[in-house]
């Protein structure tokens, strides 16, 4: 094949893509999405998959390249990480659109590609390259020539990531610019090697919707390649390596892409579902024009639609069940609905009010049973849906750990075949979760589920309802969670949320892992380690707190006798090593399952590695601004879980720095400490003022607070300047306060200003994301606060209802005046803020979430550990001594170890008659102590 034929193909590629972009760029770029923001959000998600395990530490000085960038949905988020990003696409229309959508000032360069090479991009000039949902649909010779080109432009040792399909080589035509190309895995790997790459990894790609089609042997992969050299092979030879028989060409007989045609029809169906006739017509016209042999029905529908648009008779049904047509059984539906109306009236109303999209269609196979298809993906096996659903149920139940109650919680109704079979298998289906109302509706019309629904206690269809988990905690702790695989693939995030809630509930009930909480030597997060310990106790977990703050004086004094910072650093690092060693000795003596570190806990990499080698799950709650404090870059790799208080891009960055998982977990409050106080007149005078601020004297705070000098304003905290006006404002010589004093200030002040610190900006940081602990502490204390606008604030509190916000100095002063004049508003807002904080933002809540994530991943591992631990045997041995058993159970509930000491601690001598069991335990306690003492004496140990 010469470049002439490539040129032909590239012309076709450009034309066809230009057409698609002009038709509906969002649809063709990002299936099913119809606004730009959503498109970029999906781009962000895809980028996080692309960048997982990519080292981003130096990205700011590097150049990244995307082949097939389209309108730039991935380029936009990518530009935040890399110094420069290059987007290459064959479609001029796409690049023109990209120019409109992307910030012209951004570090993004767009290249119009020719469909086969990367001319204009220098040799070994790129640090990272990828192609996502692009190279996989190119003609095979374009794929080959681009791969050779990518090997040319990438620097040695740098990474190329490709989203491709591997499995059975598909029967495609060289003319098709949209059909998925799939290669035999061995051939593909050989080709990559010959092109100059080594294979780093090849992971199956899982997206929230079905991307692979295992039945067709079409499985999506994310492949990571490392450039070793330039290609040692030419394009044609490479094509033969990929596809030994080559990709056939239809030449003149080419009818157009069937894939494109089908997708255009699906697009039309979506629009019809929403009643968007104009758009539907446009899509059908696109379908009919691009394919030479459109089906007559499609042409008919197009005609009808056009008629209707011109005011003709209505001939297209809007019945929401159109798609189900002959399979929809109105009797079943009514029967099912009656049960739902009775048991779940709210849901019945929601179903009635729901607008149905046309995302669902029906397919039938050999069995003629209807299989629901969501966004093009069948939810059950098309040929034998019943048998395969039953096989799934059998398999799942065989693996399930069903309790005595036989309760099951099911996520995903799919086409519904597994539902009735579950009932037949004598399990009690107590909870059904289905995030898609359309699906639920359809299933209610296909199956008679009325008997089954009568036994169901909870039918949940949204994350909001999912959050009301408390109501069905009792059921969940007894139930086994089954997740229908298709639902898992289609609604990954929702299913993750289900898993987290389920496992956290069940885990908290069933598991009692022992936890070590290690706090920092000093700093603002110090009290938080204590709050966490307290919260773990409230959750009845076994917790051992390592409060290292008492070693701070020693740490500070290491440099007492000399000046050299080098020496001080060296000694301090040895000191930290010693403290680390102390923690590991503690763990040796009191083994734990989980190590939870609070930011800046002084544990050395060596010790963290040792701890992990013991099979302990390591967790860090990094409560710092990842942008400012970059310690996470060094420590992430030592933690199985890094919880951070910011979202993207940091989650991806922290994971790429080596953390097992990075998860967003905002700060919180500890209601035992942060609580409304009754203050005496004296206390109110000392701690109170119209306006107060508590915190360190960061630049932006100094800048904004100086203007409040005329007011009754008190500043508390350290690191403030000494001169005017701060000499007037700063209280008690700017000393360090303790958390109990904080709460007095919160309670005594009419307005508590809460301004997040910034070292670079004046006043309010415009794009500040995370929320500081103060926000939660103030709310929990029932104090009124005026807090600066933050990106994450609205999802945690409702501004204007639970707290007041300001965007700049002007608004701050305006609101100060307003709220000083409206004490009742302050009071109401503070009360609402407290209610929200207590309900959603306590450390107990956070730990539930934290443990939920961990349990969802590690339930089996932890429960195996628990089974190996002492508890099962103890409870078994004690089963015939009821009082002793009860006492052990109390210890278990409190998360303690089953030791004699713990049992004896519950006995109070001299406070009422002791039971027989208590006497016996005291007897044993005496024996242990006395014989132990005698042995010590004999061994020459000094005893008292």
């Amino acid at each position, binding site marked *: 094949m010469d470049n002439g034929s490539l040129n032909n193909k590239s012309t076709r590629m450009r034309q066809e893509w230009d057409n698609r972009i002009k038709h509906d760029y969002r649809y063709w770029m990002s299936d099913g999405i119809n606004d730009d923001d959503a498109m970029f959000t999906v781009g962000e998600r895809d980028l996080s998959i692309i960048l997982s395990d990519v080292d981003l530490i130096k990205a700011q000085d590097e150049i990244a390249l995307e082949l097939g960038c389209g309108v730039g949905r991935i380029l936009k988020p990518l530009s935040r990480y890399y110094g420069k990003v290059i987007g290459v696409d064959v479609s001029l229309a796409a690049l023109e659109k990209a120019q409109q959508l992307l910030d012209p000032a951004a570090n993004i360069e767009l290249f119009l590609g020719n469909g086969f090479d990367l001319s204009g991009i220098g040799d070994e000039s790129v640090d990272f390259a990828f192609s996502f949902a692009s190279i996989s649909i190119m003609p095979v010779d374009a794929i080959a020539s681009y791969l050779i080109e990518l090997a040319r432009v990438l620097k040695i040792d740098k990474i190329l990531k490709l989203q491709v399909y591997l499995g059975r080589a598909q029967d495609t035509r060289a003319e098709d610019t949209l059909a998925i190309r799939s290669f035999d895995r061995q051939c593909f790997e050989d080709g990559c090697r010959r092109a100059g790459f080594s294979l780093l990894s090849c992971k199956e790609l899982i997206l929230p919707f079905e991307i692979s089609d295992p039945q067709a042997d079409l499985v999506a992969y994310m492949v990571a390649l490392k450039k070793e050299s330039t290609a040692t092979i030419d394009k044609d030879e490479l094509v033969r390596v990929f596809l030994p028989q080559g990709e056939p060409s239809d030449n003149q007989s080419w009818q157009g892409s069937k894939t494109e045609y089908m997708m255009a029809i699906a697009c039309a169906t979506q629009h019809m579902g929403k009643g968007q006739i104009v758009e539907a017509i446009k899509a059908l016209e696109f379908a009919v024009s691009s394919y030479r042999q459109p089906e007559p029905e499609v042409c008919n529908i197009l005609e009808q639609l056009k008629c209707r648009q011109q005011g003709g008779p209505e001939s297209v049904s809007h019945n929401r069940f159109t798609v189900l047509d002959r399979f929809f059984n109105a009797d079943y539906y009514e029967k099912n609905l009656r049960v739902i109306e009775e048991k779940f009236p709210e849901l019945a109303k929601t179903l009635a009010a729901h607008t149905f999209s046309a995302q669902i269609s029906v397919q039938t196979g050999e069995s003629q049973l209807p299989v629901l298809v969501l966004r093009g993906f069948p939810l059950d096996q098309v040929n034998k849906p019943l048998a395969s659903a039953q096989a799934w149920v059998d398999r799942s139940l065989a693996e399930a750990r069903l309790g005595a109650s036989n309760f099951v919680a099911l996520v995903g109704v799919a086409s519904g075949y597994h539902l009735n079979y579950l009932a037949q298998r004598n399990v009690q289906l107590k909870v059904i979760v289905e995030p898609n109302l359309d699906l639920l509706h359809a299933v209610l019309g296909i199956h008679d589920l009325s008997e089954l629904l009568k036994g169901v206690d909870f039918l949940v269809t949204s994350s909001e309802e999912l959050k009301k988990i408390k109501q069905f905690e009792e059921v969940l702790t007894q139930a086994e969670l089954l997740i229908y695989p298709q639902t898992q693939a289609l609604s990954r995030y929702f299913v993750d949320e289900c898993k987290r809630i389920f496992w956290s509930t069940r885990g908290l009930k069933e598991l009692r892992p022992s936890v070590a909480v290690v706090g920092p030597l000093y700093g603002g997060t110090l009290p938080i380690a204590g709050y966490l310990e307290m919260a773990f106790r409230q959750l009845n977990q076994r917790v051992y707190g390592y409060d290292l703050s008492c070693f701070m004086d020693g740490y500070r004094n290491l440099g007492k006798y000399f000046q050299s910072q080098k020496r001080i650093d060296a000694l301090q690092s040895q000191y930290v090593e010693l403290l680390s060693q102390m923690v590991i000795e503690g763990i040796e003596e009191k083994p734990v399952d989980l190590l939870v570190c609070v930011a800046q806990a002084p544990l050395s990499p060596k010790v963290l590695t040792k701890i992990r080698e013991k099979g302990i799950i390591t967790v860090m709650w990094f409560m710092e601004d990842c942008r400012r404090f970059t310690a996470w870059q060094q420590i992430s790799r030592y933690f199985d879980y890094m919880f951070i208080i910011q979202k993207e891009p940091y989650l991806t960055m922290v994971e790429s720095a080596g953390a097992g998982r990075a998860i967003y977990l905002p700060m919180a409050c500890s209601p035992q400490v942060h609580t409304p106080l009754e203050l005496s007149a004296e206390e109110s005078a000392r701690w109170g003022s119209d306006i107060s601020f508590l915190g360190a004297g960061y630049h932006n705070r100094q800048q904004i607070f100086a203007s409040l000098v005329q007011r009754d304003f008190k500043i508390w905290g350290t690191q403030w300047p000494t001169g005017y006006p701060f000499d007037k404002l700063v209280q008690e010589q700017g000393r360090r306060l303790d958390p109990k004093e904080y709460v007095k200030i919160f309670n005594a002040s009419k307005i508590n200003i809460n301004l997040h610190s910034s070292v670079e900006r004046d006043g309010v940081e415009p794009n500040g994301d995370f929320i500081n602990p103060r926000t939660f502490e103030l709310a929990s204390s029932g104090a009124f606060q005026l807090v600066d606008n933050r990106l994450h604030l609205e999802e945690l509190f409702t501004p204007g209802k639970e707290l007041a916000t300001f965007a700049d100095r002007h608004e701050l002063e305006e609101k100060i005046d307003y709220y000083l004049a409206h004490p009742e508003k302050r009071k109401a807002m503070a009360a609402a803020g407290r209610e929200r904080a207590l309900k959603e933002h306590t450390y107990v809540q956070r730990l539930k979430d934290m443990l939920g994530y961990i349990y969802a991943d590690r339930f089996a591992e932890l429960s195996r550990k628990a089974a190996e631990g*002492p508890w099962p*045997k*103890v409870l*078994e*041995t*004690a089963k015939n*001594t009821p009082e*002793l058993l009860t006492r052990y159970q109390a210890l278990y509930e409190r998360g303690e*170890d*089953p*030791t*004699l000491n713990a*049992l004896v601690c519950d*006995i109070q*001598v*001299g*406070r*009422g*008659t*002791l039971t*027989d069991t*208590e*006497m*016996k*335990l*005291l*007897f*044993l306690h*005496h*024996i*242990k102590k*006395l*014989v*132990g003492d005698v042995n010590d*004496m*004999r061994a*020459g*140990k*000094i*005893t*008292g």
Partner: protein
Amino acid sequence: MSEEIKNICLVAITRLGDMLQASPTIYALKQRYPRAKITVVIEKQFAMICEGIPGVDEVYVLDLGMVYRCLTRDYQDVVEAYLYLDQAIKELREKHFDCCINMSSSGYTALLLRMLDIKDSRGWISDEEGNRLISNPWAMLFAAFIFHANRNYNSINIVDIFRCSAGLREFPRKLMYNPKPEDEEYAKKFLQDNKLDDDSPLICVQVGASQEKRQWAPAHFARLTKLLVEELGARVVYTGSGSEQTLIEKVTKFYSSPRAISAAGKTRLGQLAGLLKQAKLLVTGDTGTMHMAVSVNTPVVALFLASAYCYETGPYSEGNIILEPKVSCYPCNPNFSCLRPDCHEQVSAELVKKMVELRLHKTSAEMVNYVISPSEVNPANLAIKVSYYDEDGFLDFKAINGFIVRDGVDEKLQEAARQTYRALWKDEFAAVPGAEIWARIKEVSRIAIPGIHELDTLAGEGLTLIERLIDLIMDSSGNPKFLGEINAACETIDRNIEGIGLAHTMFGALTRMFVMEKQNLRGSDALTLARDTKNRYLSLKRRAEKFSRLYSYYFSTLN
């Protein structure tokens, strides 16, 4: 104890020596209640001892070693220990004891008695809330003297305390252990096999002791053996358990002779008794072997080192010689180990050999009246004491090489105080001595004793207060506020009384008794409690008065 008693339980869990020291009590109980069955509850390790103690009908063995091992493993093994205990309690309860005497002072035996739920329980017991109580004045006395500072003033042997606790007047003045004939045969054969079956005096030597600090150094023992073998021509047999063999090997490293052999680990308890019975004498520390020797009528020369104190646990028979070092820390606290036991150096092998020689040539009766001149054995270094029974049948020790003034303390004054307490407690709790001594005392003029006046005054103040309290309780219209005030005032007085015992150690036992008796008051009726409290102040006042008179008397007899 009532005549109806049919079934007696003795809890003697702690140690071998303790059981031997309880043997006169057991024997006397059996004599007193011939139809009663006596069951001894004992630790497995020491159960064997019961075989030779006359009067024991049944032995109930508790395997506390196993329990302890379970407890150290913790977790489900605690349940194992619990179930074992549960079963034991059940079995013991089924024996339906009428009476139980606790010979131990430990917390767990007190709880055990409580769990057995026997109406007539004596010694250390526990109330239903788990507080440890002492049900008997003698046991309380023992507790008062356990208080370390008071030890110097105690002179009532544990054997007498045991039998007085059981309320026995008639009792054998010796420890009771009967080795079986085959045990004695074994001992003879042992000597024969080791070619030590000649007529020369057989002397047993017990090298080991319960604590290292109470163990005389191997080099000293070696030197002693050499003297015994070579100068006295004696046969020497080292006794002890198998674990003590290493220690004996240390001795034989310094000196070995075919005339000095080890029987350590080669004798069961009965055989040890058989061997001791063959011996003319035992040289020992304060050990179980010592008690075993006196129970088979073999005299002992005993080195009471470190924390060992002869007035508490000395050999219970007449004419035994005790060597007691005089260093300022003697007797030391048994709960601490010692890195430099100076007291060991006060005793020389030569002196011990001399005492052995002396004892071999004298009868018990002759020993009691023997005197060693201070020039022969300097009382500044060592006290030589000899055991004897006083006119009331209580064991006592007298120093036969004289008293000195040591570290500013006149030993005579201390001895006078010791005698005073002895007479005082006998008078208070056993109604001995008789009228005779009081008649003698009348003739002696009182001497001034620092602190006694304050004690008397405080007791008087307490008495006044408590009488006012009783009035208030009886007067229902009284202001309850005053009750609290009086209680608070009483507390202050009690603290001051305790303070006097600490400042004037001579009164330590007196005030400690007072405190303990008050702590042991039980009941919820305010008036009864107040009346009992009043009795405590009365007792203190009375005892202080008696102390003053007795002390003046003994002081005069010693001068």
